[in-house]
Each structure stands twice: as structure tokens, then as C-alpha cells.
């Protein structure tokens, strides 16, 4: 009996969390400093399970941090640097107020700075951790490197970002790590596989930014501070993993080639080297100058059954990847001046192609337009005055589509002035039941390299598209005549599936009285099953029923969306056809 009365909120979850303001007071930091610290240390708020308990009975909206996190921040040396900076600002103000210019100068020289190396090491204990989290830093650095060098942020930051991004791109070129590219309306997405980690980054188009007022650049700058440090260390490590020199140096051979031109035309001496690097036209110098090291061959281990299949699949994939890496090998590109040079040079070099541009566009061009051996010229204008006979004039989308398809696509669709086929996202992987655009189906067929299959699919896909592939269809019909009943049955099944997809629209299903008898048992069985299911659903528990309904709703919505897209596509194709007819 008796004992001390238990007080509320002195144990349990209430003691595990701390509000933001209390945390700030505990650290003795101002709110901006606290924010900066959280950004640098990667501390984020937590949502407690029982908010009211943690909030001591109140339901006011508050942000909570884990008390452990805040204790962890307490020992951070950077907090001391923040305080130093505060003192520095106070002293500086005082000196200004007293017009003691010498003191101002002295203080400015001793402006406190800090390094983030230890934080990087702490946040990413292993290199792979860092690589996993590099997406955001790449995006941010690429964005900052496009900023104008006035206002908004320090010029040094912009220069550093530019340098780091150029280094990164050079690494990707050297490692041939690029996998996918996607031109979106936001910018260009790149996906590279670096040491087994898929890394995606977005590069904005090269335009001046219309700086919005509702964006806090201080926050962005703090992130950039962290990201530049991270990216620098990662670059260092990556370069060394490939035996490349860091900071990057151009290959001596390439350098001598580039030297011939008069560099002063392009940039000042101090910037010249970076410019040459960013031209991406020359390979980098290696520490040990050897030829390409051979890939370590996988040893064969005796395996059985499923594993064997897995292994085979893996091997096949690897082969495909190897082939993709050499996609543009032996091709010589020339980039016209209206085409985004950096992106194309980067992409083409990543897949082993050679690329050059007009001398006046950028430093580092290796050959002229008149070069005889050029195989492809990338042009983005309606027509070109002087055309050479022995090369293709193609639009830039061809390059990107080839990379995504992992094969060289036929160039006919990408000639000058031709309406381009749609550019599809390589990041979408359609599952069963999802909508697949017909263009994707075509590309898949091309990848498999099977022409007839492609036709068949087309046949199944849209019977209405007969006009486009009339001759193909004729062959197809012959095939069907020869085919036996099994094929027909398959066809029927497919049709049925198609029907289901097309909102159960009856596509000229004729049921003869004789057949009805045959179909009846099947249908009856189906109905029976359906009813069985319905009755079983009736017996579900409330909780499960709710979950089930939710899942089914989601599924139905997916189907509805797919159907909608199909219908839209069909309407579009029909209208296009009608237009064609009227033109004829």
C-alpha cells in the first residue's frame, strides 16, 4: 500500500521526444542555426505514435524530435563553430560601429569557418551508404552549377558545383556507367549504375533561372554546402577506383591535340582547364597508364535447378549490358550548334561514340563538319543547306531512344523534318494489367529481334490498324488459315482479355445456337464460381472485408485508368486516320 504517487508524463513516450523549441533552447541556438545543424547532421522530426501523450495532454500541433537525436547534436563540434560565428558577427558590427577599419580587417581575416568532413564520415560510415544517397546531391549541384554568377549565392559555391559536376560526368564517361536517359519537360534525367547502385539525377535545361521570391536560398545553400563536400569525397574515391588521377587530368595525348588550338579565344587561362574538362571530348589520364583492364570473368560454379536458371539469366543480362556499353562504338557524330552540346557529348561518349562540334561552339572539338568519316550528324532544324551524302542527318531524340532501347533503332523515323515518334520514359516498367503504349510494344519486339512476333502482336493489339500494315496483315491471314484449332482458341482467349480491357465492349461476338450449348457448361461453371465467391465474400469478417474492398477498389481504378488511356489512344488514332483519308 501507499508509495509515491506516479506522476504523469514522467515515463514512457513523453520522455523520448522533445519539441523543437525545447531542443533549440537546450542547444542554445537560434532557429536558423538549429535548422542548419539539422540539415547538416541529417536530423529530422519524428511523429510519435501517441501524439497526445507526448504532448502532455495537449493536442496543439508541434514538431517533435527524438531526445536521443538532440543529445547526439549536443556533442557536435560544429555547434561551437556556430557560436563562434555569432560572436564574430557581433564583434564585426561593433568594429563597424566604431569605424575601426583595421579591426574590421583583422576580424574578417579571422572569420570562423568549419569543415564538414567528419559529418560526412559520420552520416555515411561506408562508401556504399554515401553512394546510395547521392541522388539529391547530384541534382542540387547540377542546379547550382547553372546559376548565374551574380547574387543568390557565392561565386565560389557555383564554381565548386560546376567543377564537381564536371568531374562526375567525366567519371561516368570513363566508367561507362550510364544506363538510361530521359528528356522530360523539367530537364534531362540520367540514370547511371555506379558500383551496383542506381543513381538518378536531373539536369535542368540551360536557361537563366527566373529566381522565385518564395524560395529560401539559405536553406538550399546549406544543403549545397553539405552536398558539395559529399560529392567531392565520392568523386575522389570513384576516380581512384578507376585508377584515374584526381583532380582529373586530361590524357597527355588528348591534351596535346587540344593544345594546338588557340585557347585564349574561349576562356581565361585559369578557367581553361575546367572548360576543356567540361567539353567531355577527351579521355582522362590514368595513374597507371595501362590498356583497358579486362573484366574479371565469373568463375563457373556447379549449380542446379532454379539457381542455374537464375545464373543464366544474370549472365544474359550482363552480356546485354556489355553490348549496351559499346552501343555507339565506331560511330562518329557531329553535333550542330542548335543542339544541347553538353548533354549529347556526355551521352555519346558514355556509349563509346566519338563526337565533335563546331569550333566556335565550345573548346575541345576534335574534327570539322567536312570530315568524311562522320556517320551521324545531329541536327535540330527543319533542313540543312549543305548535306553530305555519306552520313545520316538525324534529330537528337534518336540518340536518347537508342540508349533506352539498348539497340540502334532504325534512323528513318528520326530524319530531318520527320514527325518524331513519342519519347517514352525508360523508368516505367509495366506490370501485368498496366497500360502499355503501342510504341513500347514495338520497341520490345525490336529488342527481341523477332519481326513476325512484332506483327502478330500488332494484330492482336489493334485490329483497326490495318491500313498501316496492310501487306503484313495479308501474310498474317495466310498464317491463320494454316493454323490449327489451338491457335484459334488462343486467339479467342486473347480477344476475351482484350474485351475485358475494353470495358467489356462486345467486339462483334456472334453466338450461333449450336455453339451456345457448348459454351453453356463453361459459363455455368464460371457463374457458379462467381457466386461461390460472392457468397464467401459475404461471410468475411468486417476488418478483412474493409481491406478487401480497398484492394479491389485500387485494382479497379487501375483497370479503369488503363482503359481510359486505351480509349484515348484509339480515338486519337481514329481521328488521325480520318485526317489522312480526307487528305487523300
Amino acid at each position, binding site marked *: 500500500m501507499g508509495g509515491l504517487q506516479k506522476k504523469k508524463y514522467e515515463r514512457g513516450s513523453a520522455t523520448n521526444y522533445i519539441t523543437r523549441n525545447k531542443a533549440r533552447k537546450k542547444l542554445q541556438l537560434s532557429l536558423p542555426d538549429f*535548422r542548419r545543424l*539539422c*540539415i547538416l547532421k*541529417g536530423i*529530422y522530426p*519524428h511523429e510519435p505514435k501517441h501524439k497526445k501523450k507526448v504532448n502532455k495532454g495537449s493536442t496543439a500541433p508541434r*514538431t*517533435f524530435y527524438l531526445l*536521443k537525436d538532440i543529445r547526439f547534436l549536443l556533442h557536435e563540434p560544429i555547434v561551437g563553430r556556430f557560436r563562434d560565428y555569432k560572436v564574430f558577427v557581433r564583434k564585426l558590427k561593433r568594429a563597424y560601429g566604431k569605424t575601426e577599419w583595421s579591426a574590421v580587417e583583422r576580424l574578417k*581575416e*579571422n572569420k570562423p569557418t568549419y*569543415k564538414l568532413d567528419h559529418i560526412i*564520415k*559520420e*552520416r555515411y*560510415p*561506408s*562508401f556504399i551508404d*554515401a553512394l546510395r544517397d547521392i541522388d539529391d546531391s547530384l*541534382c*542540387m549541384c547540377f*542546379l547550382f552549377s547553372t546559376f548565374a554568377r551574380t547574387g543568390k549565392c557565392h561565386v565560389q559555391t557555383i564554381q565548386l558545383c560546376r*567543377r564537381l559536376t564536371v568531374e562526375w560526368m567525366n567519371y561516368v564517361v570513363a566508367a561507362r556507367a550510364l544506363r538510361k536517359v*530521359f*528528356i*522530360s*519537360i523539367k*530537364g534531362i534525367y540520367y540514370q547511371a549504375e555506379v558500383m551496383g547502385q542506381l543513381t538518378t539525377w536531373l539536369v*535542368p*535545361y540551360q536557361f537563366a*533561372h*527566373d529566381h522565385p521570391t518564395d*524560395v529560401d536560398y539559405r536553406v538550399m545553400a546549406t*544543403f549545397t554546402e553539405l552536398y558539395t563536400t559529399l560529392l*567531392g*569525397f565520392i568523386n*575522389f*574515391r570513384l576516380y581512384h577506383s578507376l585508377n584515374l588521377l584526381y583532380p582529373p587530368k586530361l590524357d597527355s595525348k588528348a591534351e596535346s591535340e587540344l593544345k594546338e588550338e588557340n585557347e585564349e579565344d574561349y576562356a581565361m587561362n585559369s578557367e581553361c582547364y575546367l572548360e576543356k574538362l567540361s567539353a567531355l571530348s577527351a579521355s582522362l589520364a590514368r595513374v597507371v597508364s595501362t590498356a583497358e583492364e579486362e573484366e574479371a570473368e565469373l568463375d563457373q560454379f556447379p549449380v542446379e535447378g532454379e539457381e542455374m536458371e537464375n545464373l543464366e539469366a544474370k549472365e544474359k543480362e550482363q552480356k546485354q549490358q556489355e553490348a549496351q556499353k559499346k552501343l555507339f562504338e565506331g560511330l562518329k557524330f557531329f553535333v550542330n550548334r542548335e*543542339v544541347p552540346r553538353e548533354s549529347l557529348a556526355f551521352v555519346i561518349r558514355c556509349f563509346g561514340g566519338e563526337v565533335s562540334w563546331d569550333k566556335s561552339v565550345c573548346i575541345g572539338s576534335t574534327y570539322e563538319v567536312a570530315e568524311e568519316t562522320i556517320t551521324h550528324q545531329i541536327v535540330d532544324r527543319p533542313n540543312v543547306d549543305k548535306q553530305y551524302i555519306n552520313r545520316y542527318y538525324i534529330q537528337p*531524340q534518336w540518340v536518347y531512344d537508342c540508349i533506352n532501347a539498348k539497340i540502334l533503332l532504325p534512323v528513318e523515323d528520326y530524319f530531318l523534318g520527320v514527325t518524331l515518334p*513519342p*519519347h517514352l*520514359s525508360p523508368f*516505367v516498367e509495366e506490370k501485368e494489367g498496366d497500360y502499355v*503504349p503501342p*510504341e513500347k510494344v514495338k520497341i520490345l519486339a525490336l529488342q527481341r529481334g523477332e519481326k513476325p512476333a512484332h506483327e502478330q502482336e500488332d494484330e492482336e493489339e489493334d485490329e483497326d490498324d490495318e491500313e498501316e500494315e496492310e501487306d503484313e496483315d495479308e501474310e498474317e491471314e495466310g498464317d491463320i488459315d494454316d493454323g490449327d484449332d489451338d491457335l484459334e482458341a488462343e486467339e479467342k482467349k486473347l480477344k476475351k482479355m482484350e474485351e475485358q480491357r475494353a470495358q467489356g465492349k462486345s467486339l462483334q461476338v456472334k453466338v450461333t445456337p449450336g455453339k451456345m450449348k457448348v459454351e453453356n457448361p463453361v459459363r455455368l461453371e464460371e457463374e457458379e464460381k462467381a*457466386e*461461390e465467391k*460472392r*457468397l*464467401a465474400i459475404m*461471410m*468475411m469478417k468486417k476488418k*478483412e472485408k474493409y481491406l*478487401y474492398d480497398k*484492394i*479491389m477498389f485500387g485494382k479497379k481504378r487501375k483497370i479503369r485508368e488503363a482503359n481510359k*488511356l486505351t480509349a*484515348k489512344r484509339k480515338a*486519337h488514332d481514329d481521328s488521325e486516320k480520318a485526317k489522312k483519308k480526307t487528305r487523300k
Partner: protein
Amino acid sequence: MEGRSSNMRSHDQKEETKKEGMKKVQEKTKKRSKEEDEEEEEEIFNLKDKPALGGEDEDLSDSDDSVFSGLEDSGSDSDDEDEEDDDEEEEDDDKLIPDPEQTEQIEFNPDAVLQTPEEKKKKKKKKKEGGVTEGEKKEDEYQHDSSDEEDIRNTVGNIPMEWYKDFPHIGYDLDGKKILKPIRNKDELDEFLDKMENPDYWRTVHDKQTGSDIILSDEQVALVNRLQKGQFGDVNFNEYQPTVEFFSNDVMIHPVTNRPADKRSFIPSLIEKEKVSKLVHAIKMGWIKPRRVQDDTRGNFYDLWASEDTSILARHRMHLPAPKIPLPGHHESYNPPPEYLFTEEELALWEQQDPSDRKWPFVPKRFSSLRQVPAFPRFLHERFERCLDLYLCPRQRKMRVNVNPEDLIPKLPKPKDLQPFPTTQSLVYRGHSGLVRSISVSPSGQWLASGSDDASVRFWEVCSSRCLKTVQVGGAVKSIAWNPNPSVCLLAVAVDSMVLILSPSLADKQVVSSSERLLSGPQEAGSTEEAGTVTWSDTEGEELNQGIRLKIQHPKAVHQVAWHAKGDYLASVMPDHSSHLQVFIHQLSKRRSQNPFRKNKGLVQCVSFHPLRPYFFVATQRSVRIYNLVKQEMTKKLQANSKWISSMAVHPGGDHVICGSYDCRLSWFDLDLSTKPYKMLRHHKKAVRGVAYHRSYPLFASASDDGSVIVCHGTVYNDLLQNPLIVPVKVLRGHVITHDLGVLDVTFHPTQPWVFSSGADATIRLFT
């Protein structure tokens, strides 16, 4: 003469002061302080003079000089003249600048500079000696100064010349003689002729002060030209002379000034010492940090992960890596397939929606070529939002359970294995004109009786759906029940406040006669305490012909009748909130009625007898009470967990009860298990109106306002440990919903797995 000379002197001094600048001013102040010491009276004059001199600050010292130069007697006259002359001279200066003499003056300047020290000394002397030596010195001074004299021929000064219009002279020369006006009778014509004829006319200048014409020499013309062009007057003057620096980096042999070095330059400075000691102290105390070595640590990278240790990993166990940005789909392409572009409706919808509700934060767009793609206007915003998400959003690991929906469906025995049960609608009994509230099947299973709102009771043959007999009862039939005893053929019908006992005579003669016998048994009417409320009466005439044998008059409207299994007892229900007279139990053989309850326990919905034992079930609004009729006590109270019970049925075994309720539920009670329902079935979409058990098959059915009858399989095991198995086996539809009412009553065939249902659409249907 004297005045003039002093005047000249003062002018000269002025020039000097200008040249000498600050030094002179300082000296003047010194002078003044000396003067103040010496001559106090003269200060008074000084004060007087100041206002007269007006704004000429520069001349202040000069006039002072003149004042103190011993010319006090000449007084104010000289002062006036001074002023005049000054003005005049200024004008002259203006005029004279072009003259070659000016250049001489410039050349002269070094002399003047050289003179200054002497002059200063002289002046100092002057101050001390007073005005005694003044006169002679003046003469000396102006011997060299020839510049002014030559030009001043007319001494009238700077006055408008028309003042001399009426005089023959135009002014006075230096000697005070009148200067006569030249005889001038040139009129316009002469002027013109002169202009045309005189070749020197263009270089002739009229001098207003002397009234004479001067012909300029060639040099003078050239000078004027040069000045007009903004060039220097002197041809020989080189304006781009190399500067000779006075102070240069060359070490000279001689010092620039001959001044001996100050003493303080040999003694260490105390102030500096103090400053240095302060700085030293501050450095010692760590207040001032020595200049840091500039190092560009920003761009210095090294192998940070050279020694990877996993010990730090433990620190971040709670850390969740930020989720990656979802990858873009086809709709984000600069050239998407046409189906991904918005139609006009979709675009309108997109614009109407709140930004947080939109499926995509942008409108898909199509550009025919890459060069036409503009910058994305919200790029910075999106990046910034990502930043905010990274440091402001709480992170949570949501375990997404990937449930296969098929797994959620319970595994039930297949309905096929649970046959027989009614599956199809086979017969429809039509004939009633109002909604059919109640149906009942005869114990033999050959006949079906139905009571309807059209005030009639119909008898149907089950197999042929023929209506054999129609009895008009004069009121809407609420309930109808066939006597379960197969040896009699009687029917109880609840109409308004009466319960009618019908003998339809649809059986063997033997059965009919036995039922007649039952009805005509001994009469003990009035023997019970309820004699006043319930009256038994025989029917006569027309009614008797129709088969109505007995009328039991109740005080209120009767809603339900129910037979005991033996067929002798009959219960009737009169729902009423306020009284305890809600249920009556009638004994047919003795024509006796009694009210079993003394208290009102709630609105009674329906009642039922236990098929085997002397129990009586009373369903009130929320619960079912079970009374032991022998012991005359309540044995159980079942909580139905529903809002309003509509109907009830007792399993032929007697251990299970099902209740239908108006809130769409069907509850199954296992009496041995608990007073709570063993199972709640929510199969119907609308209120459940009727429930029924099959007598021999493990089936039960429920009828609802949604127009369906659901047949369920409900096996009851003899083993007490095994719970009943309930499986819905069939949903039967057929009734048409009229006035929001669907199926009103349901009942099973006594021997076959058939179910009858009566509906608001005035039909009765048989499902087999």
C-alpha cells in the same frame, strides 16, 4: 595720389595672399592676436569697418592693413575709394587676361614668390613701426609692377558710360586731366561705307572707355583665335611638360626643408607604446587571434572512407534514409504518346483542383523538337520542396503488406457439397391484390395459406399453384399460422383486434372431424381473470360457411399468432408500450385465455414456443427473453446486439435461435453457448423482415426489403463442443420491390428443401 598707391598695394597684397594660401592665413591670425594685445582701441575701428566691408572676406586682412597703416585721418574716403578701385581692377583683370602682358605676369610669379618672405618681414616691421615708413615703401613696391598702369587710361572705373553722355569728356586720365570724346559723327552710312571699304574693319575694336577705335595687331588676332578655341594664350607654353616631382623616391643629398628634426622624433612615443602593449595583452589573453593562414580547404578532398569502421553505424540505428524521388513516367516526356496529353475537360479539371489533389503537379506537354523545350518554371520550387521534405518531414517506415485479396476470402465448403437447398424459382402464386404479409404451409406440405392486406386469406395447392379457396376476413391480415398438429386442420389468422380460427376443410374427413371436435370442446369462458378483455365467440351464417369457426376478440390489434407444437395452445401478440397486456396464450380445447406476464418488459415484437420443451420465447425490441412456462420464470435473456428485432425463428432442435432485425442483421444464438449472438450475418442490404428454419434440413432463410431471400446452410452438431457451421448457399431473387418493401415473409416446406416467400408485389414465390 596717396590713396591710390595704398590702393595698389592692397591689391598686390591680395594677390600674394592668394598665392601663399594657408600659411598666410595662419600668420594673419597670429598677427591679429598680437594686435589685440597691443592696441585695444583700434579694435573698435575694426569692428566699425567690418560691416562696411561687407562680404569681402578675402579682403579683410588687406583692409585691416590699410586701417592700421596709419591712414586713420583720411578715414572713410579712402575706404570708399578702395572699394571702387578693387572693383575696377577686377574688371581690368578680366579685360587684361588676353593681353600678352599677362604672360609676363605669369613669368613674373617666381619673383613674387621670392619676394614674399621679404614682404612678410616688412609687414611685420610695418605692424610694429606703424604708418611711418609706409609712403616710401609703396613707391618701391610698384616700380616693377607695370602691368596695371598701361591699361588704365580712364580712371572713372566700372560705371555705366552713359553717365558721361552729356559731357564733352569721357573721364579722366591718370594725371586727372579730362579725356575728351573723339569727334564722332559717324552715322550708319559711314559705318557701312567703312565696313565695305576699310580692309581692317574686321579687326577694329571699339573701346568704350576711351571712345576710340583700336585696330588689333596680327598677334592679338591670333591670340583671340586661340582663346576662342580654348587653347592657352601663350603659343610657346607646353601644357604637357614632364612633371618634376618634388618628392620622389630618389634619395637626395639635401633635405627638402632645412628644418631641424623635432625632439619627439628621437623619443619613443608613449601613445604607441600604450597601443602596442594593449595589443600584446589582447594577444596574450587570446582576445585577438593572429592572422590565420589562408588555406582553401573547401576543395581539398581525400579518401574519407580509407578506414571504414562499422562502429559508427550503431549510432544511427533509428535513422531512416530519405525516400528517393519517384522516377518520371511517360507523361513527363517532352514528346509523350498522344494518350497522355490532357483533353480539354481534364485540363479544366486539373486547373480547378487544389494543387495538393492533383495527380500530376504539371500539365503534360508536347514539343515537336528538342530545341523548342523551354525551361521548367517550377524547377527551383520543386528542388526547394525536396529540401524541405528532407529536413522538415517526419519519416516513418510504413510496412506495406502485400495481401493477395484472394487470401482474405474465407475458405468455405462448396455449396455444391451442401445440397439440397433451393436454387431456382419454380412457381409464382398470383391472386392477391395487396401486399402479402404472412404465409404458412400446412403440416402435410400440400397446402399453403396466405394472408394479405386486401382483407383476404387464400389457400393454394403448393404443387399446382392453384388458389383453391379465398376467405374474406374483413380486414388486413397481419399474421397467419397453420396448426402444426397434423391430426387437425386449423388455421389461426390475426385480423385487426381479432384472432380467427379457420377450418379450411382441405384434408381427410377424419382430420376435419377431429378438428371440429377440438373446436366444440367444453367451454369455460369467463372462468379466467381476463374474461373481460378477451372474448371467445362462435361464428354464424356467412362466416361459418367460409370456414371461420371461432373469433377471439382482443382488446387491441393483434400482430402475430403462433401455435404450440402440439396444436392446442395459441399465442397472440399485441404490441403496446404502455401496458402489460401484450401477449395472450389461448388454449383452444378449453377456450381459455391467459396473460402470462404481469409486467411490461418492453415492446414485444414476436413470440414463439419451444418445439420440444415448455419454454416460451418473447422477442422485444432489443432482446429475446426465454421463459420457463412450467416454473413460471425467466431462464435467459439474449442480447441481440441490434437496434430493432423484426422476426425470430427457433431451431427445431430447440437449442438455436435466429433473429432478424430492421438494421439488416441476422443474429444466430447458440443457447448453450452464450446470451450473445454466436454469429452476426450482415448479408442483406436492407431491413430483414422474416427468418425461418427448415424443419428437417439444416437450412435457414432470411427475407429482406432488398427483394432477396438468402438461404444459408446451418449445420448443428450434436457434439456440444463443435460450433454450428453456417454457410450462405444461395441468394434467391424474384420479388419486385414496391413502395420500398421487398419480401415480407419466408417459410420452408415442412418436408422438401423448398422455400416460400411472400412479397409486397402481391405474389408468393416458391423456390426449389
